[in-house]
């Protein structure tokens, strides 16, 4: 079956604009994660969704960042009033959920460039 997909693959925006990044997880996966990969910061966790539970937003770097997951499937990460330091590759991952070292399957990422 299809893996995790993300769109767009590349996004160039101007400082101060809002952007939306989309993630389509693997069908049937209840857990969905967003990570960010940037120079100097490495890979860092942003937010986690599991079923209908309240999301874990502990990794979001500021209140300009938000995410939602509609119908337990597709997720959108929104960055408001983008800044140059937001430039990074944003990765989405999904897993079957639950405890026990479930493998997270990663999408190809969205490369965001803020000019």
């Amino acid at each position, binding site marked *: 079956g299809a893996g995790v997909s993300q769109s767009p693959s590349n996004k160039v925006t101007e400082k101060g604009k809002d952007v939306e990044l989309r993630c389509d997880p693997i069908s049937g996966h209840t857990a969905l994660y967003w990570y960010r990969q940037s120079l100097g910061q490495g890979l860092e966790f942003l937010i986690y969704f599991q079923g209908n539970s309240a999301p874990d937003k502990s990794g979001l770097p500021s209140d300009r960042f938000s995410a939602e997951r509609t119908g337990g499937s597709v997720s959108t990460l929104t960055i408001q009033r983008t800044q140059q330091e937001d430039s990074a590759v944003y990765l989405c*991952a999904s897993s079957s959920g639950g405890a026990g070292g479930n493998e997270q399957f990663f999408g190809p990422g969205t490369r965001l460039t803020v000019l």
Partner: protein
Amino acid sequence: AQSVTQLDSHVSVSEGTPVLLRCNYSSSYSPSLFWYVQHPNKGLQLLLKYTSAATLVKGINGFEAEFKKSETSFHLTKPSAHMSDAAEYFCVVSDGNFGNEKLTFGTGTRLTIIP
């Protein structure tokens, strides 16, 4: 809090010689540990994982890792390097005790294979 330390940012080996990528972890609970690989312009791919079963874990492409609790280590090895192994490797830890398996990544080790 959980963390991982990858002791080498860059490792170079000759084709056909052994590979050793070092990783130490810190976790408050019994951790799940992973190695992921990222080839240039490709997504993250799981190499192998440890989830409290056998301490010697075999993964894809001939890689294996040994969980040593006394040394808090999870080093990645391969007996004979191949040119296709050139990539960035990430050691990753997850507590996973409460169902939230957010991953904490090491800073990565870039593996170069010398022909």
